[in-house]
């Protein structure tokens, strides 16, 4: 009996290790292709330190909240977020630079899909984590709601922002007015923010972010930055039509 238990434990242990390393814990048929497309031949580990927080069911397919939480993973250089079954797979590509490596945002989801964070550390290795989100569908092929309002162009690229200090870091939350059209709604070309960066008062870049069509309309982001006290933060960026984003947030 004891031996049975021991061999069972061993077998379970082996399975657990196998899961942690290479088999896709989200069991998505798209993963092998996506892995090749986004990571090439680089090895990837499914790592419990890479957490994607998202609802089990997308209550609003146009606004699915996602938080990427990275705890205990040192020296994060890059965070790529993808949704396997979205018509446009890539959501964002984040370089935390001096900021904390986690972030929050909202996405449009066309159907049930895994949402994955692919995280590269300083040694070049990739760490993956993710969550399945069920969805009724339609998030990417619907026109943005702002399109039906006559004055969306007047508020284009306006930024609302606020900073919270917790004594160690400062959290910056931003809302940027932008239709973020995917190009998949009939007659409406793709129109979305491509680049964002946060700079400190001296012009030093704290973080850089590339964003893609699946980011929700009037995007809301949360970043955690090193605390720079009362110093101004500058938000700069550009959409795919060349319109600039440039705003200052006073903590």
């Amino acid at each position, binding site marked *: 009996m004891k031996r049975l238990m021991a061999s069972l434990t061993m077998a379970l242990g082996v399975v657990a290790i196998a899961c942690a390393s290479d088999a896709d814990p989200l069991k998505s048929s798209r993963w092998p292709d996506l892995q090749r497309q986004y990571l090439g031949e680089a090895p990837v580990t499914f790592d419990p330190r890479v957490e994607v927080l998202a609802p089990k069911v997308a209550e609003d397919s146009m*606004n699915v*909240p996602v938080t990427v939480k990275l705890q205990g993973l040192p020296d994060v250089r890059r965070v790529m977020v993808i949704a396997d079954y979205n018509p446009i797979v890539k959501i964002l590509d984040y370089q935390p630079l001096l900021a904390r490596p986690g972030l929050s945002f909202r996405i449009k989801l066309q159907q049930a899909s895994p949402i994955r964070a692919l995280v590269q550390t300083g040694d070049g290795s990739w760490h993956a984590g993710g969550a399945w989100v069920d969805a009724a569908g339609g998030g990417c092929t619907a026109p943005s709601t702002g399109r039906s309002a006559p004055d969306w162009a007047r508020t284009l690229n306006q930024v*609302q922002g606020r900073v919270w200090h917790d004594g160690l870091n400062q959290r910056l*939350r931003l809302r940027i007015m932008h239709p973020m059209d995917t190009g998949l709604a009939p007659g409406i070309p793709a129109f979305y923010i491509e680049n964002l960066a946060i700079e400190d008062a001296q012009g030093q870049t704290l973080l850089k972010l590339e964003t893609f069509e699946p980011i929700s309309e009037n995007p*809301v982001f949360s970043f955690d930055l090193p605390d720079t006290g009362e110093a101004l933060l500058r938000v700069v960026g550009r959409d795919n039509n060349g319109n600039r984003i440039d705003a200052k947030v006073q903590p």
Partner: protein
Amino acid sequence: MIARLVSLLLLAGAALAAHAADFDYGLRPQQVAEDSWVLIGRTEDITRQNGGNIVNASFVVTRDGVVVIDTGPSRRYGEQMKAAIAMVTDRQVVRVFNTHHHPDHFLGNQAFDSVPLTALPATQSGMREQGGAFADNMYRMAGDWLTGTEADAARESAHAGRVSIGGHDFELLALDGHTAGDLAVFDRTTGVLYAGDLIFLDRAPTTPHASLAHWRHSLDVLSRLPVKRTVPGHGPVHDDGRGIAQTRDWLDWLDATFGRAAAEGLDMAEVMRLPLPPRFEGMPLARSEFERSVTHLYGAYEQQVMNTAAQRHLQQK
């Protein structure tokens, strides 16, 4: 022993499967007062097993015919409700009230198509605008239970006031807060309040079209009625103020939790992970409804915090 347990489980599974395969909701009218009957739904989410039978639908057998309050989640449910009514009376249905436009309360309307289908004006437009999408989504969640179901919007407008039907004195209350139009039906003859989804009991309230402030005001109105027995939209029939108290407690808690989270700068997916207070932990669907409510309601709370900040701090270049 284990083999017996397994075979028992298999048998139970087979019985459930058979139940699901012939799409029998097993509706059994329970009498809650003289002439007054309720079909009690499960306090579950909509699944392919329960076919959407998660709602309380009621009927009152008056001298002049039967008054139906809500028709359930599908055409099949409506048809089986009709059969369940025929088990207790041979009188015809003369009036249907839909308490609001959510699909589990009106997708059975097709079975009562020859009867005046009545709802508040806001509910009628909600049914017309969103009914099709609701039916699609219900089909996605409950599967073939929904076969043949189409949104059949109420054609007659209900208005606040007294309506006397066959010796029953009904008071119609035109309220809102759970949705833009929430009709509560109070039968002054029996003292039974048919509250629709303004009242939940022992099942977490849902908020896809909610205004918390309006909802709480509607609860105030309902709490002043001389009610003997309450039929909530979801959960057990009860004789005290528990439903109102618990629903209000949940709404107050949502409001306080979202307000605090926004003030602390949390993002939506983080709010979804906040702990439930012990009193709600064991409540069916508390976690999933809380998650859904974050999507429905939290945006307004964070917007308010951001706006305040924008006026004070932000310098737009």
